[in-house]
């Protein structure tokens, strides 16, 4: 895993090869979560997870990192209590790894504090940008897939991994538009990113399906192109139909049940990559905990079939 020399913009000069200085990507077997399905921890369900007598039957939980950046107060306290009983995965949505301006140091420090407090089993972020100048847009915005972008994202991942002292997983985006400037496909871009930084990938099956529909990415080719050993986690979620009659779009909402197409692509992904820690992501119009657990059980059944076969 030798990193090529990067010629551009001098962002990287201070960064060593992260693989040399911190823990390598931990394989799912090491985590003990390889065959298990988790769910997202939502505020409305927190009290159920604090119930000593009937703790909900789920192996692990994922939290949105930025919801817990205040190092004190009620949310942080609840998370600390829940983290004593459940393995926690920390999923960032706003670090803006695609920012050529570099990472927001304060943001990275908050993330590092959270990781230090919770001791998560997994840490993940997105292939996206969400900040420009002083403004934060609260949206995972798309990147042209070019060598320049690869340099920028690699430098930001290096800095993140150096600060956290561990590797992170980077999630594939849900695509709604393409840039003419792009010079490579998503699978190639993500694979090169893992080679450059030692990071792993979080495969969001719903995002892949959406990008397949909206942008014409061949999902079978995508699954075949990405090396199995870099996939550290899988996300499952629902989506909605949008756009127009002439130009239909699938839209990622995290607000509905996992669709049959997503289940089918999930099975294909497991057949290709092997079992991976899987998470049901449903964070708008949050349903009952029971509904989330049912979705998790369905994912577990699919994973179990792959394990038997």
């Amino acid at each position, binding site marked *: 895993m030798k990193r090529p020399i990067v010629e551009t913009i001098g962002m990287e000069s201070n960064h060593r090869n992260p693989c040399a200085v911190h823990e390598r990507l931990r394989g799912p077997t090491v985590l003990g979560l390889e065959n298990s399905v988790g769910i997202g921890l939502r505020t409305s369900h927190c009290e159920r997870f604090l119930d000593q007598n009937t703790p909900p039957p789920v192996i692990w939980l994922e939290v949105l990192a930025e919801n817990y950046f205040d190092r004190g*107060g009620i949310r942080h306290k609840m998370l600390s209590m829940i983290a004593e009983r459940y393995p926690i995965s920390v999923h960032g949505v706003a670090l803006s790894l695609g920012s050529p*301006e570099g990472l927001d140091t304060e943001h990275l420090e908050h993330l590092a504090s959270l990781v230090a407090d919770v001791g998560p089993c997994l840490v993940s972020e997105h292939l996206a940008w969400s900040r420009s100048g002083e*403004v934060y847009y609260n949206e995972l915005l798309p990147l042209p897939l070019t060598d320049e972008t690869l340099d920028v994202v690699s430098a930001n991942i290096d800095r993140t991994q150096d600060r956290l002292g561990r590797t992170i997983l980077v999630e594939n985006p849900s695509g*709604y538009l393409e840039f003419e400037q792009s010079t490579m496909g998503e699978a190639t871009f993500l694979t090169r990113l893992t080679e450059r930084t030692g990071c792993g990938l979080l495969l969001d099956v719903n995002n892949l399906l959406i990008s397949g529909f*909206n942008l014409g990415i061949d999902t079978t080719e995508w699954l075949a192109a990405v090396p199995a050993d870099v996939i550290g986690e899988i996300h499952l979620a629902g989506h909605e139909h949008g756009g127009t009659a002439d130009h239909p779009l699938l839209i990622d909402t995290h607000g509905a049940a996992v669709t049959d197409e997503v289940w089918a692509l999930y099975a294909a992904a497991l057949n290709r990559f092997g079992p991976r820690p899987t998470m049901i992501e449903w964070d708008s119009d949050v349903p009952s905990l029971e509904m989330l657990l049912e979705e998790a059980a369905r994912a577990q059944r699919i994973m179990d079939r792959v394990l038997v076969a």
Partner: protein
Amino acid sequence: MLLQLQRTFAARLLESKEKGPSPDRLRVDALGFGVHANNTRVSLRIAVENVYPVTRRLVGADFFTAMAEQFVASHPPNHGWLSAYGADFADFVAQYRPAADLGYLADVARIEWARVRAANAPDAPGLDLIALARMETEALEGLPLSLHVAASLVSSPFPAFDIWRAHQRNGGDDEQLPQIDLAIGPQTILVSRPAALEVGVALLGSGDAAFLSMLSEHSPFGAAYQAAVLEEADYDLASRLGDLARMRALATFIV
């Protein structure tokens, strides 16, 4: 190139729908750009909505959406974590022309923001009454007590507490709302975190209101007590301090 591309892209994200979205120079698909622009506007508006549910009910969903979207466009967040986003919404509401008739609206919003602040504030010890009792009278007089980091005072010329509380109790049914006489006068509200997992909202008596207002403006203990007595001649400091300490209104002090 990426830097410029993002600036061009970002510049159009928070513009209103009517102006038509896609940034021409980027030659990206307008419909796809519209999805990102819509997600940006709606998700930030919902972030505001989640903090201000009572304010929203007071004006109705459509009015609130218009008001919150204007706020988002003119006050976009500066941080990737949103726990501090919306802090200046109450000031925005106070200046928002279409709501000019609803004088109490901004104060209700201030109560709602104070609850978020209380929930997210760092953990810090409250006032130590035993240490306070050990102090010499003279030292006590000049003691600069301050509000606890999780505590806020909201002073309203309107019965803002009654309005806020009425919307906690009736489960969202406007038919059941009590009539509130806006002329019943000013109310001062204490919002604090009395226990690790609990936010409290309390209507203060006039003595407590004067006492805490003076302390929050950094007046010393003696002057704050005198202000309280001016409001309530029989202000019982020992018992009031006990209650205020239980509500974690006051920070610990260092002599």
